[in-house]
Structure formats: structure tokens, C-alpha cells
């Protein structure tokens, strides 16, 4: 068993190396694999070949599009995460969080994971990165896929993201978040110790499954797990959303359309 796993790892490594080898090189590689198949189940082998084909064609799973989350999530994240188990002191703070204290009312960026359900967003992809552009206060994320380490030490409203593909799923690791963003309008919140792991999987043409796990031992007894389905908006456009705060501290979205 262990030798099979190692063989797959080598296969993956070989794949990365072959890159743009001429066709004879690829054929030789395939011939070697076919005449000497691994001990693993043939399905695994077929999946590997499909992955190879996609890699050689430079294809990634396609997450492109404008996506919209269920509106209930931003009202109360527990609608997509279940009951949150706070540590006692944090639960008291959660109960003390009033709607007018919502960072949204100060025009702050929504943070992660809230950005994924506070407004529509559009995904763009290049071979070395995924980019998510959120309508909410024109925030965005650059998610490098090249394996570079996190930039740690600068607290960021939208955090520091690093991504990788696991099969058809984009897995994004997020750290360096501030403790200033909330999870919803209901006062659910996280601290600056939050570590978020997100999983984006396209289920079909019009749906994107979003799962995330928020580990934050300062406020949660166990990780909060969000799971929700986003719908494609094939005709929309991400519009400019400027947010201005008045002297009383209440928030105004400025419509980008003439009155």
C-alpha cells in the first residue's frame, strides 16, 4: 500500500516536470505506466490519467462566474453553520454585540469567511492564482497557488490566503485576520487568532459548494463549520459599491446608478 502511495506521488512529481514535453515524451510516460500499472484500484488509475490530461492541457477546475450565497447566511451564520459553541467569556461578548456595532456599519471590509455571503462575488483564474472580487465595498483577494508561504504578521481585514487544488476542490488557507470583522449581522464573531480553511467545489454549471472551517480557540470550543450552496448569476455584473459613513456612524451605500 505504502509503495502505491509513493508511486502516485512520484507520478505527480513526474507530471509537473514533463510540463510541455513533446508528445513522444508523454507517450513514453504513458506507455511505462500502462505496461507497469500500480497495484491500486483501476479507478484511481483512470482518475490519475484524467488529472494528467488536464494538467498537460493546462486546465484547472473552472470556478469562474458570479456567485450568490443564501441571504440568510449574512443575517445569521448559524443558518449555514449550526449552533456555534463559544467559550463562556466569548459567548457573553457575542450576546453584547448589538447590530449597530456591526463592522459593516463602519464600512469595513467584510473579512473572511463573511465576504463569501455578504454580497455577490466573481471568481477569476490564471494558472498561478485565483482571484475573488467581492461587490461589498469593492474588496478582493489574491490567492496564490504556487505554494509560497503565508505573509504573516500584518493583520488584514481580508486575511492572507494561500490556495491549492485537491482534485476538483480549491482549498484556501487563510491566516493574519484581524479581530475586527464579524461573521454576520447577528453579532457572531471571531478573534484575531482565527484560522480559516475554505473549500470551493463546483458541483455543476450553476452551483458552487462552499465549506469552511474556522478554528479559533480564543472564542470557539470547537471549529465552526460553514457549509452552503452558492448559485451562479450568469447575467449579472459586479457593480461599484462605495460605502460612506456619516457623522453619526451610520453607513450609506452609494448607488452607482443615476437617480
Amino acid at each position, binding site marked *: 500500500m505504502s509503495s502505491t502511495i509513493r508511486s502516485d506521488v512520484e507520478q505527480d512529481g513526474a507530471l509537473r516536470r514533463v510540463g510541455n514535453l513533446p508528445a513522444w515524451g508523454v507517450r513514453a510516460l504513458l506507455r511505462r505506466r500502462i505496461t507497469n500499472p500500480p497495484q491500486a484500484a483501476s479507478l484511481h488509475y483512470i482518475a490519475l490519467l484524467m488529472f494528467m490530461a488536464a494538467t498537460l492541457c493546462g486546465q484547472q477546475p473552472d470556478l469562474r462566474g458570479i456567485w450568490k450565497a443564501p441571504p440568510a447566511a449574512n443575517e445569521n451564520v448559524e443558518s449555514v453553520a449550526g449552533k456555534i459553541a463559544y467559550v463562556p467569556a466569548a459567548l457573553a461578548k457575542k450576546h453584547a454585540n448589538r447590530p449597530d456595532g456591526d463592522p459593516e456599519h463602519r464600512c469595513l*471590509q467584510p473579512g473572511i469567511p463573511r465576504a463569501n455571503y455578504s454580497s455577490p462575488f466573481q471568481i477569476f483564474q490564471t494558472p498561478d492564482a485565483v482571484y475573488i472580487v467581492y461587490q461589498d465595498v469593492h474588496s478582493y483577494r489574491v490567492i496564490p497557488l504556487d505554494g509560497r508561504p503565508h505573509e504573516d504578521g500584518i493583520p488584514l481585514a481580508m486575511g492572507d490566503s494561500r490556495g491549492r487544488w485537491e482534485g476538483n476542490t480549491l482549498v484556501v488557507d487563510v491566516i493574519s485576520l484581524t479581530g475586527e470583522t464579524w461573521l454576520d449581522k447577528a453579532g457572531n464573531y471571531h478573534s484575531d487568532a482565527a484560522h480559516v480553511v475554505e473549500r470551493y467545489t463546483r458541483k455543476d454549471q450553476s452551483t458552487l459548494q462552499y465549506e469552511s472551517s474556522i478554528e479559533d480557540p480564543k472564542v470557539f470550543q470547537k471549529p465552526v463549520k460553514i457549509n452552503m450552496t452558492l448559485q451562479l448569476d450568469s447575467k449579472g455584473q459586479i457593480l461599484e459599491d462605495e460605502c460612506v459613513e456619516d457623522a453619526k456612524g451610520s453607513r450609506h451605500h452609494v448607488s452607482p446608478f443615476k437617480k
Partner: protein
Amino acid sequence: MQGIWRNLQLSAAFNVEAHEETYGAPAGLSVIVDPPDGKLPYLPAAREKAKDNWEHRGRDPVGHCHMHGVPRVMVPPFPFRIIQDRDYVVMLHETEHSLRIIPMDGRPHLKDYSSWDGDSRGHWEGDTLVIDVTGLNGKTWLDQAGNFVDENEHVVERLTMTGPNTIQYEARVEDPTAYSKPWTMRVTLGRQPKKTELIEYDCIEGERDVVHYPK
């Protein structure tokens, strides 16, 4: 064109016309290439307003955390990233995390749109990326010196790679209620070193200050 870029003629961020140095701002030659005298062809009333803006530079919308608008967003000392993805070119700016999504598929402009960074539509003319920008709100300045445009602004931008690490950026601005004729500015954008990343830039303090929101 993919990568992280920044304007190399930073004096344009202070004043697009030729100007002497002032405290904290370097002198610079005009980046206006048409008309050839390098001066903005203001109509008389607009020239008066520009002078008044200069006297009241604290009104600069950028100083109140508003977005730069087009073409100003291309010239500040902040880097921005160009992404090319199938039917889109996307520009992600570090400053105020402003951004432009530029469809390249020939779809029409939005109607009745009015925003700081406008509604952009792009196409290729040979190796030149041409971007047509409408739906601008007319509240933006062109620089810190108070040069400005009004709500009838229409911009056509042309981005051409002049080497692996340089882009010639041109913006032709039409605005018949502020200018007697269209004018064109030109700057060079330079590719930023490999390790550059866009860092989050939040401007919050001024957004609290709606009193100064340009009317």
C-alpha cells in the same frame, strides 16, 4: 500584460501639467501630450474651478477616502495588478482596494451608471488594449493639484507593451462641458519586482466624514 505595475512618472500624481516643486511633491513635466503645449484645454468656467480647487486642495476626494476615478487611478504611487482571464481583463489596485472588471466580450455599457471608476469595456486593437470608460460620476480630480473632470467625462484608454517590463498608458479624455476639445495624457507603467504583492490598503477615517462628500 499580466503582473504588478506602477506608474513611473509619479509627478503626474501631483499635477498632470508641468509644475514646480511644492512641499512634499516633486516638480514634473506635463504628461499631457495633446494638445502639444501640454496644458489642459479648460473652458473658462472650468479653469476658474480648477484654480479654486488648487486653493482648497483639502477637498481632494482621494483625501476623503473616495476612489481615484479614471484616469487618475493609473498614476498614484501604489502598485496594481493586471489579470487577463478569457473574456475579462481585471485591474486590482492597492489604493483603496479599488478595482475594475473589464469585459472583453463586446457587451454594451451599463445604462445610467455613475460611479468613481466607471463602467469599462475593452477590446484589442493589434497588441493594444483599448478600454472605453463611461458611467463616471464627475466628482473625481485628475491629480492632487485640483485638475478635474465633470460628469460628461468619457475616457478611451490605450495600453501598449513597449518592452517586457513597460506599458505605455494613454488616456484620451472627452468632456465637452469642462474642456474646449479632447485631450490626451501619456505615462509609462513599469513592472514591479517579482516579490511584490499587493498589500491591503484600507481608507476608513475619511469615509466617516460624509460632510466632505463631494456634492
